[in-house]
């Protein structure tokens, strides 16, 4: 879902950068307040894992493919939507600058879509669904799916505003493809949460409430 440079006019790209910078500042404040020394290596490993798995595009039907974003996973594991913003901002920086994946002028939009929306929908979706159905892993699956799907819907709206995609067509196609790609996001989010909860239950800010 990485938007390339040409897809958004410069002025609009700047607006998304401003929004992104506000959330990046808040994410740094979260890191200062909530991330203790002992967690730093674990956050670094989580980010490295998210980067590696993002490079693995999984085929879905209709000649397209999709990969995990990971903001929901980071937010759920570290117990804050800002953890998703923190990790995804750094992942997107490296992807854009070193690997040409996602534009530079539009990086703000990519951070908003994947980091901010992914982190917030992932975290609050997980909290809300878990409160209702009780199962942490089912909640992680649903939150992972929703974080990706809603990011894609927002992306379609941004590209409609940019004049790149017609609104109805953009929503239909982005929605359809990402409803399927979201299953990958949800599945990996649930499995990774299970593995982390099994190995290091103490890392989780909120216990999963399921004996691993």
């Amino acid at each position, binding site marked *: 879902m990485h938007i390339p440079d040409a897809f958004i006019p410069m002025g609009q790209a700047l607006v998304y950068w401003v929004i992104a910078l506000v959330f990046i500042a808040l994410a740094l404040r979260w890191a200062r307040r909530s991330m203790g020394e002992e967690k730093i290596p674990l956050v670094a490993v989580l980010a490295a894992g998210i980067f590696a798995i993002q490079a693995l*595009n999984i085929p879905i039907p209709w000649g397209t493919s999709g990969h995990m974003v990971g903001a929901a996973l980071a937010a759920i594991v570290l117990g804050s939507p800002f953890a998703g913003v923190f990790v995804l901002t750094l992942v997107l920086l490296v992807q854009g600058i070193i690997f040409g994946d996602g*534009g530079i002028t539009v990086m703000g939009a990519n951070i908003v879509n994947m980091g901010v929306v992914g982190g917030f929908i992932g975290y609050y979706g997980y909290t809300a669904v878990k409160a209702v159905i009780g199962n942490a892993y089912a909640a992680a699956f649903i939150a992972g799916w929703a974080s990706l799907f809603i990011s894609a819907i927002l992306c379609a709206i941004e590209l409609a505003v*940019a004049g790149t995609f017609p609104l109805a067509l953009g929503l239909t196609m982005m929605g359809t493809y990402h409803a399927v790609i979201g299953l990958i996001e949800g599945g990996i989010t649930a499995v990774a949460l299970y593995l982390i909860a099994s190995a290091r239950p103490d890392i989780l800010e909120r216990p999963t409430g399921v004996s691993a």
Partner: protein
Amino acid sequence: METKRFVVIGIAVALVIAVAAPFLASGNPDGLESAFFSIYEAKPFMGSELDEDAAGAAEEQVIATTGNDFSYGALMPDYSIPGMDKTGEVLAVVIGTLLMLALVFAVAKVSARPDN
């Protein structure tokens, strides 16, 4: 599981995925690219045949629409090393994974509160 062991296993898992990714990753365009090609009629919505000429024309049309002609030459474009084949792709993802590890570690170290 102690932190050191968790970190070592975590890095090992990330590197295994990184090495495998270039061999397993789909060559099909991702969801956004696919939607883009379909909207500009270079690829059917529910099919896979991509018309390369139409895809090229679509890219030019987008630049003309948005006026954003900024272009940037990445060091390792599309997770590859120019002039190298599969080995370059494996190296690119491995380098990226290790770089990620170092960068997040450094930024977290600087931003986290030191007394905790």
